[in-house]
């Protein structure tokens, strides 16, 4: 008996609906996705911290009413730079590889740029080829390597995107 190949969802990219965080009704959707896919344990307060203070930076992706992906971010002053931070990015397995994560992140970064951020940063495991490729295409560089950043001993890259200086209007 052969192993069943991973079920991939069938859909057109245009069928995916992207929505900005709209309130308490979105919170359990985000929490379920992240709890399912990421290994870090977050209490409900962690989610509230991000979505209450920066609701405009979190987005959800829906397919026919089902939440299939989310991105959760923040921004703020850090050592004299106004900087955005991508805290969580999840797309459920059957929907991966179709640009949903890229679209979610892009919307968030655009919002950060419009809000005056000078740069955006996040950490990713050095082994997470998918994430590194995604962010690399968007213009992030690997600014630092963090030794044994994760509990399982895996290193991390600190990824940073520097926005060009705003064009002077003459």
């Amino acid at each position: 008996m052969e192993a069943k190949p991973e079920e991939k969802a069938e859909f057109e990219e245009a069928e995916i609906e992207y929505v900005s965080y709209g309130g308490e009704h979105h919170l359990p959707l985000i929490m379920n996705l992240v709890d399912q896919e990421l290994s870090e344990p977050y209490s409900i307060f962690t989610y509230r911290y991000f979505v209450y203070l920066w609701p405009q930076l979190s987005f959800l992706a829906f397919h026919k009413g089902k939440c299939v992906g989310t991105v959760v971010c923040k921004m703020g002053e850090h050592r004299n730079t106004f900087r955005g931070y991508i805290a969580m990015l999840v797309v459920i397995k059957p929907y991966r590889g179709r640009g949903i994560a890229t679209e979610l992140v892009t919307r968030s970064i655009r919002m950060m740029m419009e809000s005056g951020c000078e740069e955006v940063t996040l950490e990713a495991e050095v082994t997470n080829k998918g994430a590194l490729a995604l962010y690399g295409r968007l213009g992030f560089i690997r600014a630092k390597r963090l030794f044994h950043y994760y509990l399982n001993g895996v290193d991390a890259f600190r990824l940073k995107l520097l926005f060009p200086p705003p064009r002077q209007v003459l």
Partner: protein
Amino acid sequence: MADKPVYEEASIDGQPPKLASIPASDTTVWADASPLLQAACAGLRDGELIHGDNFNLFAAMSALEIMDPKMDSGIVCTYYSIDEAIENGAAPIPISLDSTIDVRCTIDIMDHLLACEAAWHKGHSLAQTVFSCIYLLRLDRTAPHALLHSYCRIIRATCKAVVSVVSDARTHEEEDLFTMTYGLPLNGDGDDKCLSILNAVEETISRQLRACKATSSKRRLPEDLEPLQSNSNLEEGFCKALLCRLRFRKHFFHVLSCMKRPQGRGLESARKHIASCLTELESILESADFLRSCFDESCEGDIDDKTTASGFEPIGFDAMLNSRLSAPTPPRAIKILSWKKAVEYFVKLLHDLDVICSYSLDPHLESLLRFVVQFQKSQPDLVARSHLQLLLVQDGKLYGRDPFFAVINKAAALPEATKNHDIQKNESFLQLGMLVMNLLKILCTNAAWQRRKLGKFLQDWRVIYVQLELAFRNEYGEVSSSSNDENTCMKIFQHILLWVEEQTYWIAFRFLILGFELELYSTGEYCMVYWYLYAVLIKLTEKTHLMMAVSHDTAKRKGKKKKDSSKDLARESRIPPAVLFLQCYICLAEGLTMMLAALRNEIPVFHSPSPFNTEHEKFVQHFELLQRACIPDHVSYPSYKESTTHARFSTLAMYNYFKDAQRIAKEVKSSFSNDPERAFSTLFSRLGGRWGRNVPFGWIHFSSYLK
């Protein structure tokens, strides 16, 4: 006196809790908080949060969900305290009344401790690894069991010694979990005698081994010697299995003690003990077959994942007992290394320590830097790196022996006589000594940490150069010197200024090369990285060449006056091999830059702009620290663009970058006629030249894209 544990009957959902409750004491009393919690649950609606002056959302993130196993470490505890665990038989003494099982279990404990020790070295806390051993946490109660007692003592003494080395080195910035020992019983009375206690046990088992062999050859039994355990068929195997484990611990402890001796005095002895350790580790591995086969019951699961040679689970370990002593955040479950991997780790550690012990304590800074760079290529772990650092920098001197001004004096090709010159008391020279000391410490850290430190360090080297130059100009602005001493001082300044520049560019080069090793550059960024490398190499070569010329001058002056022979002139006009080598690198860097630029310019798929920024931003980010320190001067994104915009395959064919590199490399190799391979590889290693060798083939591969 605490009461015996009492089981609480009631709880919120009506199910009895699995844990025994914490006993009340004289100053505490239990009160049921369930009504209060219920009222609180009803008091807030979903989505509401209490705002407090001293409690905001950010602080709330540190909250834990009670009874969530991922966050609430107490929920997965079997026992509340060490005493409770012991009372419930978690760490029996003796382990078994059957002496054969007792011995096997003791060996299991020894093996599991080795696995825990390796896990600790690899980056987990002592509390969750080695000190998850209940026997170790209450060492005194093991006194009736000589074998276990002596083994635990030496483990404790060893851990203490290793913590001390790593703490002293202070290279563990990111690895600070390693030295956390709060609340752990690391200091034991009489641990200084641990070796003699171990020796006594070893002696007994040796005699037991001899006795069981004597029995088989029917010779006279020694009186009053009880066998190790009751099964005579297994006596020899168990004795041998124990002996190699005890001997390994003994020799390992000696390695640490010898390496601690100042000025590298114990290195030769350490090497002997390292060799013994490796022999014993081999015996330990070989004992696995016997240990696995000596009992009828086979163990479940993959033998390779087990933390013991026998495959059985060890008795007397509970990682959650220390959960309150670990880091402030609740400890997550960690995976102890398998026993096999633990042995592999120690083999590697010993090999790394052996490399350190074999080092000749060369007073030449350049050789030392080469050695450290080469050593780091094997990716030594924290314990080995800490030992290296402590060997290099002790009491503010190199190897605890050479003052840093003397080291700099030699590196800057100044005559031996100037190393005691008063000028070293000058503030700038003192600071320079500190910089060299810090450079050595930084070069002993893990590559990721090292690169970040080296980047920031560039600024310090630039500043010291400016300071020295200013001091030089203030003192000797008008060159009308007449006194000998003034001449000497001038010379010191000149040499050292040049040397500081060379060192600065060397650090810049290391910084850039480490980026490759750490995989910090994506392939689209290689072009600008090689271009920057090329710019740094040009300056490094220039300074190195000048430094060698100046050093040749000093040597000439030192030598007896003799007529200039044509041979001398020829030697003078030849470029020194070290410089040739750098020139080889320049060719490679330039060639790679142009090749990648041509690819980018001619083949659209290699040029993919990102939606949010441009190559300019990436350039600024990657080279920010170098640019800030003006290393090198007049290097910027526009100049990079200018150099590479017009690169085309058609024009590239006119240049022979890689052919030139090959030719120069051959020349370098031949100039080291007595030991070409060694010289070649050491020079390569100085600059981290893994990528250099394969480039000509890379060119052939890429040029096939043209067709």
